[in-house]
């Protein structure tokens, strides 16, 4: 019995699970075409709590305040995850789904 279509749909399903992580944390979707997505978690946080962005009110702030701003840290982590890990994972998932041996 050939179960390749079922495996392919399984890989697609898992790609869809990885996708929300990127959607939440990064400005880029990892799927084909790499569409730009406007909203991501760090930016949403920055809009919800603008007083946590030191650049908007720099008076009396030190070096560490400028370097480590929580919403921007989330954006950095999201970008690192999307570029370094998620894209390769989705490629491997699709390769796994297309591989008739699997």
């Amino acid at each position: 019995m050939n179960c390749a279509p079922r495996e392919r749909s399984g890989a697609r399903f898992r790609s869809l699970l990885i996708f929300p992580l990127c959607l939440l944390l990064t400005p880029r979707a990892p799927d084909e075409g790499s569409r730009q997505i406007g909203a991501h978690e760090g930016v949403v946080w920055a809009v919800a709590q603008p007083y946590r962005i030191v650049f908007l009110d720099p008076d009396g702030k030190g070096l560490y305040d400028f370097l480590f701003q929580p919403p921007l840290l989330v954006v950095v982590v999201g970008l690192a995850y999307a570029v370094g890990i998620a894209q390769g994972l989705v490629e491997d998932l699709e390769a796994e789904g297309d591989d008739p041996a699997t």
Partner: protein
Amino acid sequence: MIPRPETAHWLAAAFALLLGLVLLSEVIVGTQVFRRRPWRAYLFPSLALCSGVGLWVITIFSTFSTMHLVAHALWAEAAMIAGGVQLAVVRGKLRSPHWSLVTAIALLVSGAAFLVHEPNPWLYSRAAFLHHAIGWMLVAAALFPIGQALRPRWPLWRAGFALTFIVLALLLFADRDAAPIFGRFAGVVAG
């Protein structure tokens, strides 16, 4: 030049978020796909080891209080030992699933250190509340690696372990050195 505690906590939160995402990715795609590129297998143990090194740096800055110094040193040791053991497991030097118990002990020790070095009661301030919450969460989360040691194939343990780091990141990002528990919402929400 010494950073404020909340700054160090936010940096730790970013690291915990990355760790959680890496672990969650492996749960979602499965170990077979995750390890198609060998370097990804070493990602979590290496990050845990690096977090231990970072915690030693924080320990150096924690000379203002013996309890804080000891607590941060304990976290650093726990992270490095757990990361080192996981590196050996990934490399194939250690084969038994029971090595997950080392991670469980690391979580237990870390949770206990969070609880012991916080002298104030739960509702004293946001920092006190979060230290208690994180401490008990880590103690409870030690169940996940224990489950992994006993039933390695059950995905619930790995998912719970991954989500532990995501929740840890959320709690650490919420930390402020001096603030009421609900901050700007203190007038709206009792606390």
